[in-house]
């Protein structure tokens, strides 16, 4: 009789557990407008239900009532997804980690604002009914565990242990693992695969630990003293050029491959820039993907090796304001515009660019209606048209930071490229798959090269001072080609550098940038801006190449970079420490 009772209780418990998991997932899908069953049997759905399962278990262990605990956990889920549904309905985006950060600053005004979005009468009735049901089962339902139940005590110990492991010993990171949950660089895709709750937990976990790197103020003092004596000139405002920077998706130099010697026919503009001494190479913090890692380094001047836990800076950097090239140019009277031929939510760029000092962010949604795709993505031609359109008024000097997407992989498809592809001379010894990858890749980066040339010609004809900087964010992600083609320098693909090109009609010397985090400082130096202490210091560090292997300098660099990434560098140096 006792055994049968235990069996029935266990069966009831597991049935409700499964039911809770399914209901939470269905609410998730419904609130987002997806088919209810999509990705239901993926790990993401399990991770998504865990907070509610924990609540269910907590209720069971402490209230000792099965159905009442189930109702409490379900109520928490209903409230969460009701808010999510409403937010999605009004703002077109689901709840996010920022909403939870926002809760810290919730005040009466905010509550007044939000209560306008819900029917308070309906919500109150619903809550009362649900609480009544929970209380009803609380008082009339039989106890789940018997008095002095050993299973209950063991359950409490296991529950607390799992909780401690989860919160203090990296359990969250193991369960909400990027690959396991099929998270993506794109927030909405992460939510599709793993649900709103999983995405928020992952983001909050990354947010809370990734920024915790030590900063030594003595190291900052050392760095400032060492490099503040080197002076850099400042131009009068009327001399300052418009500055256009283009981060070109997966742009690389194909002649670095063995068996590829002819660069002029493939990328004539880039080849000419090399001949003229207007090009160089730099090290970037990513390979095959992770565009925002290079993008963040260029914009912020912060090397990501100083923040080793940061994978996706725009999502993980915890700061109310970030000092970037946009804010540097803004302080010098420029109008800072970012352009990207994709959604603004991708990589969380929209939110990051807002705190990074950009005055305007032109995304795919704001592109003209006559723009055209080339392959899977928006063409570099259309992006260049948008860049030129931003240069037409004369009100302020312009800083334009454009991120292309046309040359993004995959490159395996053989049915999306046009006839120009036939002109590509193939290196010998390629497999059929490699041939297709090579042809498609060359086709797209040659488009990027053509558009670079077109923009350069436009700026020359325009006749105003300008600096045009063009660089690749990382090497392309080939599945097959790297197996068939090696590099002339004998190094693996991941160790290769990416090219940068600089065209300008201002006579201030050439760029010096061996790594992506040094590129921005070199550009503001070239533009002769009145720059902040941080950009001055790293530019002087870059010029004084003898110090790059100095251990003390490298250690000090970590501290100033971390300080800058958190927007605190100004607090760590005294006014007047760094002179122009």
């Amino acid at each position, binding site marked *: 009789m006792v055994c049968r009772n235990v069996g029935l209780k266990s069966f009831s418990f597991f049935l409700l557990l499964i039911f809770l998991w399914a209901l939470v997932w269905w609410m998730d899908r419904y609130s987002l407008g997806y*088919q209810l069953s999509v990705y239901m049997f993926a790990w993401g759905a399990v991770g998504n239900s865990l907070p509610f399962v924990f609540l269910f278990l907590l209720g069971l262990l402490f209230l000792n009532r099965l159905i009442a605990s189930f109702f409490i956990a379900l109520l928490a889920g209903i409230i969460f997804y009701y808010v999510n549904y409403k937010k999605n309905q009004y703002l077109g*985006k689901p709840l996010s980690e920022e909403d939870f950060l926002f809760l810290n600053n919730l005040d009466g005004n905010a509550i007044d604002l939000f209560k306008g979005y819900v029917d308070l009468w309906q919500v109150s009735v619903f809550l009362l009914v649900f609480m009544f049901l929970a209380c009803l089962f609380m008082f009339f339902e039989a106890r789940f565990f018997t008095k002095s139940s050993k299973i209950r005590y063991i359950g409490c110990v296991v529950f607390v242990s799992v909780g401690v492991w989860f919160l203090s010993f990296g359990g969250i990171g193991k369960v909400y693992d990027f690959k396991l949950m099929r998270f993506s660089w794109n927030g909405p895709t992460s939510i599709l695969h793993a649900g709103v709750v999983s995405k928020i937990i992952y983001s909050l976990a990354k947010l809370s630990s990734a920024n915790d790197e030590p900063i030594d103020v003595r190291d900052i003092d050392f760095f400032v003293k060492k490099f503040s004596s080197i002076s850099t000139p400042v131009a009068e405002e009327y001399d300052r050029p418009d500055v256009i920077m283009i981060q070109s998706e997966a742009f690389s130099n194909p002649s670095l491959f063995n068996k590829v010697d002819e660069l002029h026919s493939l990328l004539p503009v880039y080849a000419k820039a090399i001949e003229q001494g207007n090009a160089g190479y730099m090290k970037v913090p990513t390979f095959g993907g992770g565009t925002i890692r290079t993008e963040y380094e260029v914009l912020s001047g912060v090397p990501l090796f100083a923040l080793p836990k940061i994978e996706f800076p725009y999502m993980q950097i915890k700061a109310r304001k970030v000092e970037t090239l946009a804010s540097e140019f803004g302080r010098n009277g420029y109008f800072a515009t970012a352009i990207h031929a994709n959604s603004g939510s991708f990589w969380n760029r929209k939110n990051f660019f807002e705190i990074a000092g950009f005055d305007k962010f032109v995304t795919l949604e704001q592109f003209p209606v006559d723009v055209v795709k080339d392959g899977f993505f928006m063409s570099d031609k259309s992006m260049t048209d948008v860049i030129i359109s931003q240069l037409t008024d004369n009100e302020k000097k312009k800083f334009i930071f454009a991120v292309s997407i046309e040359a993004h992989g995959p490159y395996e498809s053989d049915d999306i490229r046009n006839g120009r592809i036939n002109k590509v001379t193939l290196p010998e010894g390629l497999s059929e798959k490699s041939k297709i990858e090579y042809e498609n890749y060359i086709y797209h980066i040659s488009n990027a090269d053509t558009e670079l040339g077109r923009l350069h010609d436009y700026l020359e004809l325009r006749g105003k001072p300008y600096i045009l900087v063009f660089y690749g964010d990382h090497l392309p992600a080939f599945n097959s080609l790297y197996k068939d083609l090696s590099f002339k320098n004998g190094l693996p693909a991941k160790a290769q550098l990416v090219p940068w090109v600089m065209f300008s009609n201002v006579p201030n010397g050439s760029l010096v940038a061996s790594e992506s985090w040094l590129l921005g400082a070199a550009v503001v130096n070239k533009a002769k801006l009145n720059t902040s202490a941080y950009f001055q210091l790293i530019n002087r560090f870059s010029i004084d190449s003898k110090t790059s292997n100095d251990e003390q300098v490298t250690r000090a660099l970590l501290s100033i970079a971390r300080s800058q990434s958190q927007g605190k560098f100004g607090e760590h140096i005294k006014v007047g420490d760094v002179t122009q």
Partner: protein
Amino acid sequence: MKLKLIAVLPLLAYIFYTFVNRGVEFNVAPQSFSACDQPAHISNLRWSVTKQGVTAVSIFVNGIGEAETLWGPGELIGTRRTGAWVADGLTFTLRDQQGVVLARRTIDTIRCVGAKFGE
């Protein structure tokens, strides 16, 4: 008694789901793709609505996080082939003449075990 009550919950959910979806068939084939493949695919849609009170249907389509776009009104029974733009998370929504959702189908992908790269 309690066990019966608990066992009836999933049963009620199933009955409710069946009741709501009675008279509506909506198939997208294929609806699942390998994440190893290229991101754009072609699918075939087939629908049959015999639900009482429904006189016309419309099919809407939206990508991940995007607003729905009308893909075209349709007869109560019909088929349609997409272009090569079907991708992970793309959702087809079948609505009646008053805009009430009759069925939704969302494209999913199967994990690509060998994937090494993202954007």
